[in-house]
């Protein structure tokens, strides 16, 4: 049982941030890793990427968008409530070291939370970070302050132009790579699959290596079921053990999108019941 210590929400309550007590995981986890949670006895197991950890306080922060039954259920838990199971840290940590050139980090939607953890890791390893974060509209933008703190240069985009650049993160990214691609070591793009796919299409043109973080359906998160299979460079990989970060230029995004939709109908039934 894992207690919720803090809770806040963004984007009109559609994105929730919880800090939970999980001392062993907090001690062990590194940026890029995730946990699998199960809220209660009848709950589903879902993966959530770790958005932050505090080894001293023994806490782990999770940020998630309410998209289905389980995230809705988790969002309904308040400070002091328990989560039945938190398993982790899972997945491969991102390798953190000092690179010669700058790192361009691009985040969209809830992905910004994960991006922040990784970008912070790079920052703490002594790297210079350029960030682009975006959302549909101003009120849906998350973690702006936190990103600012670790970035030497920061760009914001909104699809509707209510804040920052009117357009997509990909457009700003394209501009930066065209202007000063030589200053940049590689790109980290984390967000909705379509965004990551679009980013990779552009960075391929610029021949700039791009790390993406994939979020396929998972069950155990330990390599036991294969639900999380993704195709990378023509090979089948289990995102939970080989990833979730992969070289975006090798990822078959179309397959990922299709596989994510397997349970769309059941999700609807499940969510509907929980609303009732």
């Amino acid at each position, binding site marked *: 049982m894992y207690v919720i210590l803090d809770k806040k929400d963004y984007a009109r309550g559609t994105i929730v941030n919880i800090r939970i007590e999980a001392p*062993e995981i907090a001690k062990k986890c590194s940026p890029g890793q995730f946990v699998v949670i199960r809220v209660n006895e009848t709950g589903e197991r879902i993966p959530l990427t770790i958005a932050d950890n505090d080894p001293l306080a023994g806490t782990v922060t999770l940020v998630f968008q309410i998209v289905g039954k389980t995230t809705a259920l988790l969002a309904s838990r308040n400070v002091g409530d328990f989560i039945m199971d938190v398993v*982790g840290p899972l997945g491969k940590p991102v390798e953190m070291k000092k690179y010669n050139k700058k790192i361009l980090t691009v985040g969209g939607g809830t992905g910004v939370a994960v991006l922040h953890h990784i970008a912070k890791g790079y920052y703490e390893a002594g790297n210079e970070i350029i960030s682009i974060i975006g959302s549909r509209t101003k009120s849906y933008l998350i973690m702006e302050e936190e990103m600012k703190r670790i970035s030497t240069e920061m760009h914001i985009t909104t699809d509707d132009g209510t804040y920052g650049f009117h357009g997509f993160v990909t457009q700003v990214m394209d501009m930066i790579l065209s202007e000063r691609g030589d200053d940049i070591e590689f790109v980290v793009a984390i967000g909705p699959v379509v965004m990551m796919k679009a980013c990779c299409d552009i960075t391929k043109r610029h021949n700039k290596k791009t790390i993406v973080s994939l979020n396929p359906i998972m*069950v155990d998160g*330990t390599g036991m079921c294969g639900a999380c299979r993704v195709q990378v460079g023509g090979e089948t990989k289990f995102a939970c053990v080989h990833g979730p970060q992969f070289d975006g230029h090798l990822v078959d995004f179309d397959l990922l999108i299709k596989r994510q939709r397997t349970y769309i109908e059941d999700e609807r039934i499940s969510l509907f019941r929980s609303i009732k």
Partner: protein
Amino acid sequence: MDLFNKVEPKYIKYGSYLHIYCPHCHKSLNVEKKDQKYILVKAKFKGQEGFIKLSPYLNIFETETDLPLKEGDIVDDMMCPHCGESLLVDDHPCEECGAPKVAEFIVSAFSKLIPFYICTRYGCKWHGLTKRDEQLIKIKIPRQDMPEQDPKLRKFNFLEVPYGYTAELAGIEADRCLQCKVPQCVQGCPVGIDIPSFIKLISEGKYVDASRKIKESNSLPAITGRVCPQEDQCEARCVVGTMDKPVAIGRLERFVADYERNINAVEVPEKKAPSGKKVAVIGSGPAGLTAAADLVKMGHSVTIYESLHEAGGVLTYGIPEFRLPKDIVKSEVNYLKNLGVKIEMDAVVGKLYTIDELLEEKGYDAVFVGVGAGLPRFMGIEGENLGNVYSANEYLTRINLMKAYKFPTYDTPAPRGKRVAVIGGGNVAMDCARTSLRMGADEVTILYRRSEKELPARLEEVHHAMQEGVNFKFLTAPVKYTGDKNGMVTGAECIKMELGEPDKSGRRRPIPIEGSNFMMDFDMVIVAIGAGPNPILFDTTPDLELNKRGYIVADPETGKTKKDKVWAGGDIVTGAATVISAMGAGKRAAKSIDEYLNSVKKTKKKH
């Protein structure tokens, strides 16, 4: 002779009530008074005449007499109380104690009259048939079937298929055992259960004792009785099997274990005094559970680390409810907890802790690794990543561990298909096929690349699957899957096989027949072609030696690995095998760990 037709004991069996008649006047010698039931004969001893009362239950040796008989005395004569004729026969010394004479009676069995003997030595246990007659009768008892749910109904529910023996059926089946002096069955048992002894206890109606007899060598009989491949192990060697179907050892095992559990007779055994030593067990499958149970009884403090949220390993996430009810697994796990074993769930060793951290930081004196072979294998053919193509592990985990069959009460969605293909021929494939029937499939087809004879699954599972209407396509394998525009599977292109020379496993190797490709339509595919070792633990423990196939190298006798203080056993050493072999490995490792811990203690004391 009409007298004999009145009483017709169905089978002669241990503990059963005998009707005994005088061979001369054909009158019954049974006396029944209120609570007293006995056989009455007259006897002469040292010129005195009196009676002897004998128990009418075969193999219960209670006797009473008014003659001054002591154990070992031989009576001079035995007579019928009705006609007074002597019952002694010549040329027939006692088969048990060698006394020169025995008395002959008649019992009826199988509508036949059979001679029955009672020794003239007071206290001698021979009170039965001649060995030859006994065997003859036993062989005539047919193997008893277990009552089970009707296939037409059960394919719509998840309730257990066989109901198990009743005490009566178990008694009859137990009587089929010949009580061999050199029991072949025991040699076929991977953990060497004393099979004839436990079967004899069943014959005597001592079911709880029988269960405890088994538990001397196998701590999970309710589980192994259900899932062991008996037809390849004990029952394959049973002597009765050479003349008829073998004794149903597995069903008897299951009966006594269930009996003991159902009447709450399970006792927490004595533990040795605390040794002050700590052992970590990684994985809570049969190997881990067995090692933990033994080690805690030996007085060590034991903690199991399990990566999933429930204990039991394959017993919990793999084998379905209708074959192994989860309540049984839970009660075994609770039994361990009552013994004092601590279980830490959600603990992925290799990620949360490394083995070295367990040894160095957490202060464990030894580690047992029983993490199973949990990595699903795929064939690597085109279309295998399409939607609704699952590994058996994912499919079964969703249904069993996550209880997706109770969706939407439970949140995890269940994969559903109307025309389902299951690839493979083992227990896992049978489980997947029968589960998908229960999940509402109209048609389930098992594609197996060899022939029916080579199916590696337990016979009973194949039989049950066929009864329930699972189709089998032998000598067939998929070569690619086709999908629709949404990326969902729509069918498989298959190829026909023929069998060639036997391969290393001794089974004939399937060879594709060129040009025999054909299409089959499916909307769901479950790949059940086996599992391999999961490297998650090894990535952080490079000094644990692995073999070429990625399994841990460990001494088969002791489970000791090449790494100091680390033992291993079960599927992670042997590759996917059986529940009982994993348990055997857990047991041997526990013994070796105990010896090691005791030796450490001794050397420390010397200082």
